[in-house]
């Protein structure tokens, strides 16, 4: 069995230019419409990020930051409140990641969405409305300006400003220590898993029992 933990990088720091997406309650159906989920891999989802907000019925481009030339190299997304609400589809952060996003700064995130981002090593850091508003404005004015997201220190720096941000403590630790990919980590506790299973009154079926049910 391979030990996957060794390959997992620490994500204590993300640097790059920003792209602002304004509005509260931007849900996963907007981030990736369900019709693009009829796929068995996540490859290629990037081009469908925010699809219905970016294109009209005849596939003509609409006004949207993801369509704008000046944001094409951005990797830090700046959003408002309750971003990513709705479904548990990992397709949403996958689409953003494959479009080029490495970190998201916002007023607030839906929980499953933030968890899905963590599983991909994408920090979701938060700050209050005024701070985010100012950052979005700055990004608009300075599309190629550099934003530094320091996950460990919980700060974001841009254009000579340094702002304090919050990172959920488990998320911070997982990202900074490179333990955000939990499969190998949890697999190493096999004995404890078996003990817990044995202690549960309802877990008693073996594979053989299941087979004989058929």
């Amino acid at each position, binding site marked *: *069995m*391979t030990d*996957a933990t060794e390959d997992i990088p620490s994500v204590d720091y993300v640097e790059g230019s920003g792209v602002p997406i304004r*509005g*509260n*309650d931007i*849900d996963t*159906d*907007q981030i990736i*419409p*369900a*019709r693009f*989920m*009829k*796929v*068995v*891999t*996540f490859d290629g989802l990037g081009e469908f990020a925010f699809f*219905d907000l970016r294109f009209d019925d005849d596939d003509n481009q609409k006004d949207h930051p993801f369509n704008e030339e000046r944001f094409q190299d951005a990797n830090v997304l700046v959003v408002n*409140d309750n971003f990513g609400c*709705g*479904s*548990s589809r*990992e*397709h949403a*952060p996958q689409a953003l990641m494959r479009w080029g996003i490495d970190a998201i700064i916002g*007023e607030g995130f*839906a*929980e*499953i969405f933030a*968890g*899905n981002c963590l599983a*991909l090593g994408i920090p979701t850091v938060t700050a209050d409305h005024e701070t985010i508003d100012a950052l979005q404005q700055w990004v608009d004015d300075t599309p190629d300006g550099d934003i530094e997201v320091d996950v460990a220190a919980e700060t974001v720096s841009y254009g000579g400003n340094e702002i304090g941000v919050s990172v*959920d403590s*488990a998320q911070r*630790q*997982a990202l900074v*220590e490179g*333990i*955000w*990919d*939990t*499969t190998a*980590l*949890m*697999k190493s*506790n096999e004995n404890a*898993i078996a*003990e*817990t*299973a044995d202690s*549960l*009154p*309802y*877990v008693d*079926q073996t*594979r053989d029992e*299941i*087979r004989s*049910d058929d």
Partner: protein
Amino acid sequence: MSQNTLYDKVWDRHKVTTLPNGQDQLFVGLHLIHEVTSPQAFGMLKERGLEVARPDLTHATVDHIVPTGNQDRPYAEDAAENMMVELEENVRDAGIQFSDPTTGDQGIVHVIGPEQGITQPGKTIVCGDSHTSTHGAFGALAFGIGTSQIRDVLATQTIAMEKAKVRKIQVDGELGRGVEAKDIILEIIRRLGTEGGVGYVYEYAGEAIENLGMEGRMSICNMSIEGGARAGYVNPDETTYEWLEATDYFQERPEKFDELKPYWESIRSDDDAEYDDVVHIDASELDPVVTWGTTPGQGIGIHDPIPAPEDLADGKQDTARRAQEHMRVEPGETMEGYDIDVAFLGSCTNARLPDLRRAARIVEGREVADDVRAMVVPGSQRVQQAAKEEGLKDTFEEAGFDWRNAGCSMCLGMNEDQLEGDEACASSSNRNFVGRQGSKDGRTVLMNPRMVAAAAIAGEVSDVRELEEVQTA
């Protein structure tokens, strides 16, 4: 910190260890999988040379993309057929039970788990679908998870999670005529907001909840996620046990029922349990609730005026303005009389047998309005079969409803059932997001199933209580 709630007790029983990042590793008692969110996880597993740890605690169905009209294989749509084939291969290789459409047990994942008796109190249940919270109606801790977490569960039968806070939502009083479980949850979300539950798990309690059957409790737990909560649950009681005893699982293993019942009793929240927050709702004050906007929190009583954006909290004003523009509604108006093009009776919120029964009583002897496309999509093949035997299928068809096969259908518009253009839909589902029902200009009005029936008949949103024969839920 909450103490001695069902959440605390079930969490403790399933905790394997605390991980270095501070999260707990929890054992998963039941892993439900479907065609849309599992293939990538199986792919990741193969890449790492890992096997499915507990296929015996895993159960599959197909619901999101399955055609609800002609189900002959290969499916008319290639993408749907490919997803089905992929799932078939994955479950066969791993030895996972699969309720596929040939079994008569297929259906929406949150309908079939409870139906088959594998959803049980005191279990941890996960699925790559946010509405997994539905299973909390049985006193299970049930969470929707993303694909990377599905990989974790397939590989280890455990999941990494942080403990949430517990908010008790005490719903007292009796529901009025024509008001249902769906209205309770829409009201909760309206009051607490779509993000009000972030960081919480909701415990639903009180007389109004206890008086509900399992289906009503499922409708409520189902939409916990729309309220931002990580999960929702109801403590198990005699209503729960009656349901369980009648399922295949316990019919085949009656001794198990007696063996497990003390465990189920033991995980109920104690009378002196401590909660992080308590909210009170008076069920007797509720009217049927409908949504006027594009988030499930934008609901109002059927006779209440649509709020002016400037009267809402700062953070909600823009969303409300955009929603009102999209829905083409004006502040001060009520939703009564809002023109409807489509009526959708389906989804894991409201497509179980009692939902269809109540709606059928409304449409019986009446006709769907001329310009309305109305459809019933049963939540599972078993619901479909039972409804047919009771004559509900005939009732709906005689009224002009299209009777379809089981699946998610127009709840999210991934199969052929979709809104077209700017059609407005009276829907018994759980999400009114822009684009949700398959057309980005489509307009969704969420409501309870009898209200959907009434809208189908009237061709507009209307108060079902103004039709006769409306009983309490």
